[in-house]
């Protein structure tokens, strides 16, 4: 194994590598291959039928569509949060900085019942919106809302450090050249933080696509309308349709893996830029 690595005087390569691989294999790889092998047993036609039935396709549309939209909303608000937290001092700043991570720490089921209570027709916000014809709970809007909630910290936390690191001089130079604030933002700041924004977007998206706990309480779970893909997997399981559930799960798995590869690539790109810049 020693031939695998470039020379390092530090001990423990073999142990660390062995342990990491065994643990990774036991907890992650082997269980995930169970999905693969189960899927392989069904044959291509059955697989295709399972993953492309109208109801399944509708759930992809909702899960992926709402997740994309939620991640886009999070890019906007996440950027505003990061901007405000990095650049301004105002009362409550410390509190916001700590609580932005709430969606990470709050169990999803708790978030789900709280959101459902607030946005249903007799909840504090639903009561205000419902007479105006805006329905959130038990519609696809509810799905979107829950996904925005759980995805918010991702963008804030990836953009915040980059924004903080942004060399003041660059901006000052721009100002010296006579660029307006908006031009400075568009031409200098935005390109600089774009990789971080993109990474945050991808992370929020990846998390949102698989989210279950917070969504099911508020979605209404109507087939073809407000039924997310993870719920569909559960539904299929409850109908004893293991093969179907596994097939849909494998589609989601492949997607997650690809998205992660992209995220890690983005992060590598970010680090390189960072290294060059400083």
């Amino acid at each position, binding site marked *: 194994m020693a031939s695998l690595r470039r020379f390092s005087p530090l001990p423990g390569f073999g142990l660390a590598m062995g*342990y990491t691989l*065994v*643990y990774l294999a*036991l907890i992650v790889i082997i269980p995930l291959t169970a999905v693969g092998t189960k899927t392989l047993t069904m044959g291509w036609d059955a697989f295709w039928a399972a993953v492309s*039935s*109208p*109801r399944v396709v*509708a759930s992809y549309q909702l899960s992926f569509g709402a997740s994309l939209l939620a991640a886009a909303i999070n890019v906007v608000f996440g950027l505003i949060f990061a901007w405000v937290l990095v650049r301004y001092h105002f009362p409550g700043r410390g509190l916001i900085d700590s609580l932005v991570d709430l969606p990470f720490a709050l169990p999803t089921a708790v978030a789900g019942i709280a959101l*459902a209570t607030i946005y*249903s*027709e*007799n909840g504090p916000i639903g009561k205000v919106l419902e007479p105006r014809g805006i329905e959130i*709970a*038990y519609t696809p809007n509810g799905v979107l809302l829950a996904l925005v909630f759980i995805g918010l910290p991702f963008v804030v936390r990836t953009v915040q450090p980059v924004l903080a690191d942004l060399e003041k001089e660059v901006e000052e130079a721009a100002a010296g050249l006579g660029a307006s604030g908006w031009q400075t933002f568009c031409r200098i700041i935005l390109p600089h933080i774009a990789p971080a924004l993109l990474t945050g977007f991808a992370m929020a998206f990846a998390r949102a696509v698989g989210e279950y706990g917070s969504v*099911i309480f508020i979605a*209404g*779970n*109507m*087939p*073809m*309308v407000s039924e997310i893909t993870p*719920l569909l997997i*559960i*539904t299929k*399981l*409850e*109908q*004893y*349709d293991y093969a*179907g559930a596994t097939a849909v799960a494998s589609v989601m798995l492949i997607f997650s893996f690809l998205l992660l590869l992209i995220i890690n690539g983005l992060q590598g790109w970010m680090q390189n830029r960072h290294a060059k810049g400083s």
Partner: protein
Amino acid sequence: MKLKRFLAGLLAGALVAGSAGAADISILNVSYDPTRELYQDFNAAFAKHWKAKAGDNVTINQSHGGSGKQARGVIEGLQADVVTLALAYDIDAIADAGLLPADWQKRLPHNSSPYTSTIVFLVRKGNPKGIKDWNDLVKPGVSIITPNPKTSGGARWNYLAAWAYALEQPGGSEAKAREFVGQVYRNVKILDSGARGSTTTFVERGIGDVLIAWENEAYLSLKEVGADKLEIVTPSLSILAEPPVAVVDKVVDKRGTRKLAQAYLEYLYSSDGQELAAKNFYRPTDAQIAAKYSKQFVKTRLVTVDKVFGGWRNAQKVHFSDGGVFDQIYVPGGKR
């Protein structure tokens, strides 16, 4: 090294799980959603009865959830000594997995259903939409709450009741029933995955004009939130819902709990058990107790799955399997 520790962890976990309640006898009753209150009362009564009769301390563990999900759990190895589910098909599925014989339903009286129920409507106080019978549900502007028949046992009874109604109308036919039930589902606003979820949506969240529900669930809601907010409407025709019970042979033989499990289910048929069922708004099968509580349950015409649909296996295959009638008539999104 890693593997050993991992296995040790698993073993430790298994021991924790295994040792719970080892001091006395315990059985696990895997049931569906709306029976929570019934079995809370019944388990206490049975424990007392068994203590007096056999001297043992018995603990009955309960698990509740959607009927299909619960059956899947048992098939997957959930160690249920007895199952008390929403419909025979779910226990058939357990039988198909070899955990109990195929003729399980003949082992206890009344198709192994100690209590029955039916499907009724729960509406807002004063019945503002004037819902009296099934045909009022398809009127424009009526918003219906019912669970998803693909996942909820109760919802399948709802669906079949609507179907049977359309079939039994003058000039009724399969085609008309199909059309009618399709219309009903076009008025459905929210399709929760379980009966309890639907009740929560309708009662607690205040959504919808009418909830199609188990009779016992409707009465329970009335009791919980008060008769000043809701009313029950019993349609002119409904379905005789028989939630069956069964001992899971494979499990009781392994655990040595057959005697206890058998006695537990038989106690459901005793006058004590029947009283408790009636008090929790299930229709008792015992004639005497039924007579005593006759005022509580509105008389209406009840049809059976066996007569109208040729049994549960058939109903399941025709209506609820993938690509079945429900999938064909369910119009995405409904009409708003």
